[in-house]
């Protein structure tokens, strides 16, 4: 009877195992990712954990196959009795596991791993179809009344097969307001926007989500759209049940337009006459005037000098000045941005005679050049792919080294080098010739194989004869209107500098998993930029004329929570140079700034004073100390002026610190400026009869508005009660420049 029962029972007991054997790459690898086993903090760590190492996020299935099935003499898996496998006992916490509970006993994930072990851990057959892409439904959604939403993830394979992998995909929300169940069900805990990155094997896709209050009484304010920018911004705001703020007043607008367009404040006269102007097109005319002013080019030369690492230690003081002039003149002449970039990439020759060659002077090896070029001109942070395939993007290590190979043949002839410190090999002072060697390759450090060059994301390697220049075809490919990453990253950079936040943010981190907050707008801006022939002024004009740009910073009931959709103007502390120049314009005073001649504004200065040049002809003196930085130079550093060592916008500190507050309240720079004898305050006292006139003038120059009646009365009273008008004006100016209204761009 026992024998009989065994025969009966056996098929029933095995019914559960009739399911197909899980695939190692499509199922088991997905489980390792889903359970987090191969995360960087766990077994995906470079050194593994507890002696068990998996490839980071499952990039190397072949190595993981061996680690699971064979490593440490086959210790981890037990096909003879699958439930007794260490890789099942530990993550299900039936055996203590430092990583905690990762696979619930009996869960679908557990079962996949168990069944694969029970089947004898079959490896993947070599002809197994590869995963081509994944598709997530919906790809974007605004949730209005229901905080939950199920996602569906479909995987497409090279043999045409489709498979629902919702249950196996990994979900990574960008914000803590969202959680996702293992079954792919989104749940918002609070109103707001979030992106969920959906990952299955080596493919990722973002889902953009917003959860907005129902606002039954919401009425769209229907603001007039000036151009395509407003149409795209307003379409999104309306879908989020959010009204944009009202239009900024004239004073708020002119101060913003001058600071964003030129980096300086409007003078009291400019502000007064603009506000007084009654014509309806006065804002558009003002924008046109600003675009023609020399400060426009200086303003952009400062931004690009930061990014192009235009600093004295490597580029040298002469080079810094020449490189800055070349950038400034390029913007002054409205050189199309694609040409500007082509000239940098294809540059060579003397760094003194052909200043764009300083791009390569500043980036001194193939790896640095490759990373800088990707970051600056494609908006791609490639660095991760140096050591392993990029975890959040499509770039592989192969992509990385093939891209670096494009820059392998840049070389230098050092004509002279008068560096004061011979021990510092990274310092140069003197002319250099950037040239192209006939040979020079980059090796893949894993295999030692020489990498043929390939454009980033291109299918084919660069078909170039040996010895042929690689940078000329690169310059053409890079700046082509077909190069989406180039066009978008550059349009986004211009948008960022005017709006205070990129449509893609950070602006040098374009990737599928970091989608634009308004992709339709980024597309439209990019198209406009291409159609204008990469005309920077055209794009700046389009943005500044939009109602979106001209909105007030004041929130309303519906957009109070919004930080990212441009429903109101973004309030920011003035950057270092703009702040010092604004203080100088209101209070007066001159500064010693690096090598620049007296009277140079901080926004015009070309260098950062990385080292001080010796006087020409002076004998080399070892141990000579650098001159002390001036108080104004220290002021700029304190307020975040970057030292230009990185090709990253992030090098400029934009935060507010206690040190900054002390500097403004009682620092040496502010004190010197206020008390300097022939400063603007002295002129104010000389040119005006009454305290009221003086106060009006001070307000217009600092804040682009007249004082309110209350302000005027109180300040006039302060002056009249004071025996010393100069001291009283100093007090009042000190008070005004310490106000938020002065320190912030609104």
């Amino acid at each position: 009877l026992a024998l009989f029962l065994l025969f009966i029972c056996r098929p029933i007991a095995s019914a559960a195992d009739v399911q197909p054997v899980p695939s190692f790459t499509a199922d088991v690898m997905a489980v390792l990712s889903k359970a987090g086993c191969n995360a960087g903090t766990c077994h995906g760590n470079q050194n593994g954990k507890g002696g068990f190492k998996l490839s980071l996020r499952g990039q190397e299935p072949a190595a993981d196959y061996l680690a699971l099935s064979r490593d440490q003499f086959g210790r981890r898996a037990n096909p003879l009795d699958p439930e007794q496998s260490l890789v099942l006992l530990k993550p299900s916490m039936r055996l203590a596991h430092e990583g905690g509970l990762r696979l619930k006993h009996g869960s679908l994930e557990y079962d996949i791993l168990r069944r694969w072990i029970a089947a004898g851990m079959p490896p993947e057959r070599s002809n197994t179809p590869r995963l081509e892409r994944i598709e997530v439904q919906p790809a974007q959604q605004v949730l209005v009344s229901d905080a939950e939403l199920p996602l569906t993830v479909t995987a497409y394979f090279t043999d045409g097969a489709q498979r629902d992998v919702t249950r196996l995909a990994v979900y990574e929300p960008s914000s803590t307001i969202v959680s996702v169940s293992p079954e792919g069900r989104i749940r918002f805990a609070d109103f707001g926007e979030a992106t969920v990155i959906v990952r299955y094997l080596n493919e990722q896709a973002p889902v953009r989500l917003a959860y907005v209050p129902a606002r039954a009484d919401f009425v769209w304010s229907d603001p007039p759209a000036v151009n395509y920018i407003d149409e795209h911004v307003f379409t999104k705001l309306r879908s989020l049940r959010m009204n944009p703020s009202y239009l900024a007043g004239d004073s708020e607008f002119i101060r913003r337009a001058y600071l964003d367009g030129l980096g300086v404040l409007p003078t009291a006269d400019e502000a007064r006459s603009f506000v007084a102007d009654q014509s309806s097109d006065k804002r558009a005319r003002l924008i046109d005037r600003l675009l023609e002013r020399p400060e426009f080019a200086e303003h952009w030369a400062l931004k690009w000098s930061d990014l192009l690492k235009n600093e004295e230690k490597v580029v040298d003081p002469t080079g810094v000045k020449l490189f800055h002039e070349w950038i400034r003149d390029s913007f002054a002449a409205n050189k199309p941005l694609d040409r500007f970039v082509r000239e940098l990439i294809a540059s060579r020759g003397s760094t003194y005679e052909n200043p764009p060659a300083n791009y390569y002077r500043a980036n001194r090896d193939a790896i640095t050049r490759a990373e800088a070029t990707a970051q600056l001109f494609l908006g791609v942070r490639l660095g991760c792919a140096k050591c392993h395939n990029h975890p959040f993007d499509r770039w592989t290590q192969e992509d990385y080294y093939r891209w670096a190979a494009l820059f392998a043949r840049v070389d230098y002839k050092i004509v002279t080098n008068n560096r004061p410190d011979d021990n510092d090999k990274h310092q140069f002072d003197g002319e250099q010739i950037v040239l192209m060697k006939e040979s020079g390759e980059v090796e893949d450090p894993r295999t030692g194989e020489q990498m043929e060059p390939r454009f980033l994301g291109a299918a084919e390697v660069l078909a170039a004869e040996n010895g042929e220049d690689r940078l000329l075809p690169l310059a053409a490919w890079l700046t082509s209107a077909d190069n989406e990453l180039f066009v978008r990253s550059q349009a986004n950079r211009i948008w960022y500098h005017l709006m205070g936040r990129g449509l893609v943010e950070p602006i040098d981190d374009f990737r599928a998993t970091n989608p634009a907050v308004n992709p339709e707008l980024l597309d439209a801006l990019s198209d406009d930029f291409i159609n204008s022939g990469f005309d920077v002024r055209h794009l700046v004009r389009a943005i500044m004329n939009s109602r979106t740009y001209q909105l007030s910073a004041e929130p309303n009931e519906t957009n109070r929570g919004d930080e990212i959709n441009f429903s109101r103007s973004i309030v920011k502390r003035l950057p270092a140079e703009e702040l010092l120049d604004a203080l100088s314009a209101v209070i007066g005073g001159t500064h010693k700034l690096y090598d620049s001649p007296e009277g140079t504004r901080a926004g015009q200065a070309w260098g950062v004073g990385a080292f001080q040049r010796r006087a020409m002809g002076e004998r080399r003196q070892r141990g000579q100390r650098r001159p002390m930085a001036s108080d104004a130079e220290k002021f700029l550093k304190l307020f975040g002026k970057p030292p230009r060592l990185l090709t990253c916008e992030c090098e400029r500190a934009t935060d507010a610190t206690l040190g900054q507050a002390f500097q403004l309240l009682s620092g040496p720079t502010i004190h010197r400026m206020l008390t300097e004898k022939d400063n603007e305050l002295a002129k104010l006292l000389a040119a005006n009869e009454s305290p009221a006139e003086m106060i009006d003038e001070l307000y217009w120059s600092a804040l682009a508005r007249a004082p309110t009646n209350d302000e005027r009365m109180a300040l006039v009273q302060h002056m009249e009660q004071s025996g010393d008008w100069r001291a009283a004006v100093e007090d009042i100016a000190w008070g005004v420049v310490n106000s938020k209204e002065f320190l912030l761009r609104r």
Partner: protein
Amino acid sequence: LNAALLAVVLWPAWHGALVAEDFESKPVAANSQTSFSRQVAPILARHCVACHGPKKPEGDYQLHTFARLMKTGAGELPAIVPGKPDESYLVELITSDDADVRMPKEAESLAAADIELVRRWIADGAKFDGPDAAAALESYLPKPVHPQPPTTYPRPAPVTALAFSSDGSVLASSGYHEVLLWNATDRSLVRRIGNLAQRTHAIAFNGDGSLLAVAAGTPGRMGEIKLFNPQTGELVADLGTFADEVFDVEFTRDGARLAACGADRTIRVYDVAERREVKSIEAHADWVMAIAWSPDGTMLASAGRDKAAKLIDAKSGTVLVTYPGHDEQVFDVVFSANGNQVFSAGRGRELHRWSTDGKSTSKSDVRKKETGPIIGRTRGDIHRLVLHGKRVLAVSADGKLTEFDPARDGREPAMVYEGAPPQAFAVALHEKTRRIAVGAFDGRVTTYEIGDAAPWQVFIAAPGFVKH
């Protein structure tokens, strides 16, 4: 067909036997006296020690010995207050309703019966009834009843250990919960020796063939060293139980002593006649993968997962040499025939030779091409080494058995034995009968005649296994 049918009939029965492997403690009658060593220690060992053990004591609480358990941790609350379960922090933690507080962390709560046992043991006065309060819990846990090995193997088990008997007539191989003895000539099954942990990692015969030593373990749970009578299969002695697998075991040439090592990072030396441990040596920072006796029985060489190979005085336990040349895990060590040199190899795919006088190598010498210590290279991780006269054979993950002659110039292999499957884990060699055996992950044993690169015999070391 018959064998397949038999497998189908017997498989469920065998599977049922495995259930006993869950080392759950048996329920006790409410009025009986509780026992720390038999009832409480198994619960602690299984659920707590991984995080509150000797390595990194989370929250400063350690539970791997009784003495540690009774000490107060960082919370300044005594884990155990004898007689008062409700004042004992341990009880508070294992019974908490708050999943963030409850231990074990991120796991289901302990079984109600286990919690009740802990409470009752504390209420009974938290008395210690083990042999040594400072000893690891695993050393005196009740011996688990190992499941029966499969009558017929539904699939082969990886061959992780091989050994020839002293006269070369028998080849012993690792099975699943057993060691298998095969006739070395006609490969018929001579005997099955059961009552062993899951995996056997090393098998050693003593010089006169009267004893068979087995190093075994169940991954992540326990390890053991057992002595058997190879003629009868009878258990002669159980030398000890450890926290995790034991990887190697070796007799001195005279058979008087035995050394073993494993995942608990220790090397242990036993007096064979007295069946007792005479020395425990902690010289490595990670698992000790292999040990070897010097020919005169005074020194031990060891291979560590900590990327070190060492030479140790067996009597005092003093480390005489730490060889610095390996950049990767070291899997095996052997002494040269005269005992003046040690060969070591592992994941680095290089065979290193270093001298026992301690003068041999500084780290900077390792990569020197002509004079450096690397005397050979393979294309796969080297899993095991075996000595053949003055030569060394290395079995590697690519299935090759490569013979190196240290005296030869040029460092090319003297010969390569081909035809074993990849992931070859074990090797044994018998000089007199001129036999070599290589065992692999897929259960195959490939045997060779010394000097002939082609296999002599191939068989799957899994009784009853029928390939479909």
